């Protein structure tokens, strides 16, 4: 038997924060809840897509595409949920939706799944958490990250690398050898599908994917980067789940868009809890996770204060200092 592994859940159970029965209650899966949210989300995509259509020849095309893009990049939220097999009771439905969302935002689902496994095992541990976004050294570094340029540069080098059948040393750490052919096949299939769509655009002089999909995603991605940094950036780079993750209290439209993933600390406590039960879990473990009452804006103010020296940097803080 291996040594005891203290997962966030065991941490919560041993601290008496909630009982196993309460936890299991929160873990209940529902196809209905997942599909209802998905239909609403698709309706929103259709609505903002319609705005792009109305604006096609006008000066407000760019703002309309930006708004549409903000919704599209939030496809990351259901994909992330599907990585955890939580939004739908049926495993196959999670696989299907996750892969479709990943295709829409160029985030290969299987690769993300393996990467995300290590993110949950080694949350905020430098050199071990493959999704760790380091606290920048300066305000300009922070703005550079938010521009999404480093993000897309990484994505556009990652896909060709996988098509060529290569992995970085970091990727070799979190993708086991038997899974590597799956990662390479996934990248090749995605690239083929993108090329087929691009070819169709050129052949049929049909540019809808550019105006309703790719350009909006590029325009909207900085918003997703700004949201993603609020989850962990500026929190201590230590294992303790009580302090290394932020829950951001945001208004209903944002909660709808991100499938309640603003309750991020709760998600890390119990990754098997579906999005619709995260508010209930939040209520149960109140006081045991770090909550940013100012929401996304409050998190950014916290980060900027650290970058400008008005608050000690948290990336070297201990749990006691962070508390």
């Amino acid at each position, binding site marked *: *038997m*291996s*040594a005891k*592994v203290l*997962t966030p*859940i*065991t941490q919560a*159970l041993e601290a008496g924060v909630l009982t*196993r*029965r309460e*936890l*299991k209650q929160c*873990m209940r*899966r529902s196809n209905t809840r997942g599909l209802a949210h998905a239909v609403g989300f698709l309706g929103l995509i259709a609505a903002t897509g319609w705005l792009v259509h109305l604006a096609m020849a006008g000066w407000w095309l760019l703002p309309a595409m930006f708004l549409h893009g903000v919704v599209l990049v939030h496809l990351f939220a259901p994909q992330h949920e599907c*990585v*955890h*097999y939580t939004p739908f*009771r049926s*495993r196959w439905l999670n696989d299907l939706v996750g892969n479709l969302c990943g295709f829409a935002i160029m985030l290969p689902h299987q690769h993300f*799944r*393996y990467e995300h*496994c290590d993110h*949950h*095992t080694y949350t905020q541990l430098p050199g071990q958490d493959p999704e760790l976004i380091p606290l920048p050294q300066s305000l300009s570094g922070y703005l550079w990250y938010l521009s999404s340029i480093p993000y897309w540069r990484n994505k556009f080098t990652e896909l060709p690398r996988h098509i060529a059948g290569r992995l970085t040393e970091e990727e070799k750490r979190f993708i*086991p050898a*038997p*899974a590597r052919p799956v990662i390479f096949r996934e990248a090749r299939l995605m690239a083929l599908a993108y090329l087929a769509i691009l070819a169709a655009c050129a052949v049929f002089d049909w540019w809808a994917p550019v105006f309703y999909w790719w350009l909006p995603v590029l325009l909207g991605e900085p918003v997703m980067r700004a949201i993603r940094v609020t989850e962990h950036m500026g929190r201590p780079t230590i294992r303790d789940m009580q302090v290394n993750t932020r829950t951001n209290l945001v208004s209903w439209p944002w909660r709808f868009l991100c499938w309640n993933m603003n309750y991020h600390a709760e998600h890390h406590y*119990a*990754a*098997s809890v579906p999005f619709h039960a995260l508010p209930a879990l939040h209520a149960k473990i109140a006081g045991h996770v770090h909550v940013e009452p100012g929401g996304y804006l409050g998190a950014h103010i916290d980060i900027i204060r650290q970058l400008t020296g008005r608050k000690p940097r948290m990336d070297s803080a201990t749990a006691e200092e962070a508390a």
Partner: protein
Amino acid sequence: MTTQRQKDWHDLIALSALEPGDATPVSFRGRELAVYDSRDGIFVSYARCTHGAANLCDGYFDGRNIECPLHQGLFQVRTGKALAAPAGVNLRMVEARVVGGMVQILF
């Protein structure tokens, strides 16, 4: 030459003490076991996930398969078979039976 240890049936936990329709953690001689009250009957396995070693009793159980709480790898509780990545190694099962309202294991 090695000799095979003689196995015997041992009381593990009362049926009434199990989490109904769920996985219950039980400690036996220093080993962490999981007792599953499944739709196909009572089954017992070692409790730790073969991938990340999280306690499976904290995971989602749909009545037939148990999901790891950490990475959502999946195991069939009747056979211990690893059904979904990142789990790739089967669970170690312990033979179990129910006698007089008591779950017993062959150990």
